[in-house]
């Protein structure tokens, strides 16, 4: 009768466990009440993440995965913004607190960390990566939470919850091609190669190149690759065979470096335009470094480089260098700072509306435009579905602090202005 004895023991244990559970009180009931109703301290309505003295924002970043270079730098930028704001007395009489969580570029970790932080943070000053963005978009909408994504697909602009600082991948590529044409490197009727990741990022980039091509009788030769692809030989060979006159790359640095290397090896001397995520200054120390600075490659971005002469950027750079002796400087700090400034402007708007609730933030976003003191072009969030700006900086890689030429050309093309984004009203 061993079986029965065992079962009995098990049953008693389980029973005891259950009894202790029922006897104890659930903390959830109290919790959800306090967070649900909130209050109206100092004439300002609040709900989650805002007290009389503090506004808490979350940062779902990547410190361990594919995007840890960008993630770490942007988060530092976020923090610097919060420090500066707090030193000036905060916003709406409240200090800004940023709670950083590491998702490791994994969607499932992003979901659980989101579920944890949503009960204490008003919104997100950073949400990194398209898998996390895709997984969290519906929860963000359901919970009425706003987040600044570190991924720039215009396909995410359908809801006000996505507070996108910068321009979108499609507009960036349109500007990139227009820039190449202005430089006389391509002309109407040419064939354009496009190597892209089969992800949100890559496919949104292709929407841009197709639009530009349609305006200039060009044809786009597509070559989609997966996110962990490393060897672009087949793509380059195919594009060379098709006789392309320029190549657009919307991929990661891995694929860009390979594409440049293979193109050189095969004697395909055409100009390259890479979307902003293709380039990191770290690439300059790799075998592809010389190809990046040869003048055949340009990229674009939404913020000024690390070594820019813009006063705000100088301030950020000197502060960063003091605190990070052995880090690799990138434009990520400026980006993170600008993302913070966008949140700041929204918070100020919401404050003057007397409503710092989540719904209040969403309402404020559509009334906000922000001057980032030259870090980025001015950002205008008032047009649903349309990128906050259509202007980009054309970057040229250079072996210097931050890896970019300090004076990028600010550029906006006619085509980019006329382009109708997928959800533009």
């Amino acid at each position, binding site marked *: *009768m061993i*079986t*029965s*004895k065992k*079962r009995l023991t098990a*049953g008693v244990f*389980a029973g005891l*466990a*259950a009894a202790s*559970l029922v006897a*104890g009180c*659930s*903390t*959830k009931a109290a*919790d*959800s009440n306090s967070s649900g109703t909130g209050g109206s301290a100092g004439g300002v309505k609040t709900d989650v993440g805002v007290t009389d003295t503090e506004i808490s924002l*979350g940062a779902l970043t990547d*410190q*361990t*995965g594919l995007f*840890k270079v960008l993630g*770490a730098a942007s*988060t*530092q930028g976020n*923090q610097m913004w919060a420090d500066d704001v707090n030193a000036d007395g905060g916003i709406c009489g409240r200090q800004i607190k*940023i*709670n*950083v*969580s*590491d998702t*490791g570029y994994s*969607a499932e970790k992003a*979901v*659980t*960390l989101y*579920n*944890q932080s949503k*009960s204490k943070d008003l919104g997100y000053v950073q949400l990194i990566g*398209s*898998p996390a963005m*895709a*997984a969290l*978009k*519906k*929860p963000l909408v*359901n919970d009425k939470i706003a987040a600044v994504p570190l991924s720039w697909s215009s*396909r*995410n602009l359908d809801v006000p919850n996505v507070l996108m600082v910068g321009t979108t991948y499609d507009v960036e590529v349109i500007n990139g091609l227009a820039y190449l044409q202005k430089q006389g490197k391509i002309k109407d009727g040419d064939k354009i190669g496009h190597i892209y*990741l*089969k*992800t*949100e990022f890559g*496919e*949104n980039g292709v929407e841009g190149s197709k639009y530009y091509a349609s305006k200039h009788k060009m044809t786009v030769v597509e070559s989609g690759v*997966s*996110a*962990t692809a490393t060897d672009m030989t087949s793509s380059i060979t195919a594009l060379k065979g098709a006789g392309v006159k320029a190549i657009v790359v919307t991929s990661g640095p891995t694929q860009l470096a390979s594409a440049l290397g293979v193109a050189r090896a095969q004697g395909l001397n055409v100009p390259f335009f890479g979307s902003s995520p293709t380039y990191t200054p770290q690439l300059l120390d790799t075998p592809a470094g010389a190809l990046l600075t040869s003048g055949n490659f340009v990229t674009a971005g939404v913020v000024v480089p690390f070594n820019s002469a813009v006063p705000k950027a100088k301030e950020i750079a000197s502060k960063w260098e003091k605190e*990070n002796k*052995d*880090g690799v400087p990138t434009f990520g700090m400026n980006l993170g700072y600008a993302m913070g400034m966008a949140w700041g402007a929204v918070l100020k708007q919401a404050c003057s509306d007397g409503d710092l609730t989540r719904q209040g933030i969403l309402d404020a976003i559509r009334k906000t435009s922000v001057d980032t003191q030259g870090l980025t072009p001015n950002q205008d969030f008032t047009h649903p579905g349309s990128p906050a700006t259509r202007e980009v900086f054309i970057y040229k890689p250079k072996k210097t602090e931050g890896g970019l030429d300090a004076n990028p050309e600010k550029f906006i093309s006619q085509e980019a202005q006329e382009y109708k984004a997928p959800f533009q009203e």
Partner: protein
Amino acid sequence: MSDTEIANPPATPETTGTTPVTARRSTAARVAPLIGWAVLLLVLFLTPVYVPGEWLSVLCWIMAGGVAAMGLTMLIGQAGQFSLGQAFFLLLGGVTYTVLAADGDAEYIGFGLPPLVALIGTIIISGLAGAAFAPISGRLRGIYLGVASLSLVFLGYYLSHELPMLAGSASSGRYAPTFSVPGFDFGETNPQLLLLNVPMGAAERQFWLFAGLTVIAYLVGQGAMKGRVGRGWRAVRDNEAVATVMGVSVPGEKAKAFAISSAYGGLAGVMVVWWYSGLMKPDEAVELGTYSTYTTIALLAMCVIGGLGSLGGAIAGSALVFGLPLALPLLTGSNQTVDASGTAFTPIVITNLVFGILIVLIVLFEPRGLAGLGTRLRNLIRR
């Protein structure tokens, strides 16, 4: 019918068929298991009242992995068929449910069936797909079968990218409806239902749904393993020639094992879609993501860690393999600093290290997995 210890842990002596059937069980022996189950169900019912939302989502993720691993552990531990293809059936289940349950539009194919019908249809279709693999699985053995089934994961990745009208675009995916039966919507975001003064929202309801499905999956699996089906599998696993002599259809048993395992995989795939708020999105790369080779190996790891052939072990394995990486970052919580060099021991780095070390230690010191460990502990208590 002989059973090796590893494949059939003594935790479930009923399944071995070696326990002599007692003519009359005492009343206590008959009632105790029922009480045990009743208490378990009560605990599961009350869990959402006490456990915060993020932990409910960790538990739900563990159960989704657990259901997939239960199917796989029956296939490997009971029927002796090595498989590295379970992540493919997760994908297949997710896509099938989405296509059946979601409404069609210009971009996506969808039939708009009621969720319950779609769920049952998904389980059946996944099972049939597993059976369709039989001509290949019947010919192969051991690691060759394992790697052959791994090719399903690659094929699934490729097809999910080639057929976005079914699987959703790789960029932002497509949405399937959450589960609901007439009168009760499991995706309710604005709940009127209060239990002990706690509102039962989507997270709480999802836990009930997942717990219910996991319990059903466990009972069905237990039933299959105890009965004729399980005896047939073990006969095939132990010696195919002998099994044939005894009148067991070897190809038939293998196909049956694959079908049942795949049906579990399909169900788990639906649970994964629900867990992601209904989002069905193909991975960005075959090595990385929800339906990737990483997941397929993780599912295998669950079975071995749990103890091959043990259903309870599969769930315990999932708690370690799927649960730990989500739980540790929650426990360490957020902080206010960030390390610029990127070489810090972040919670995720620590999780990966702990996870790897635990696997090594378990194989080193308890080859029968957590199920074996459980048996040892019980013996210790009883003594």
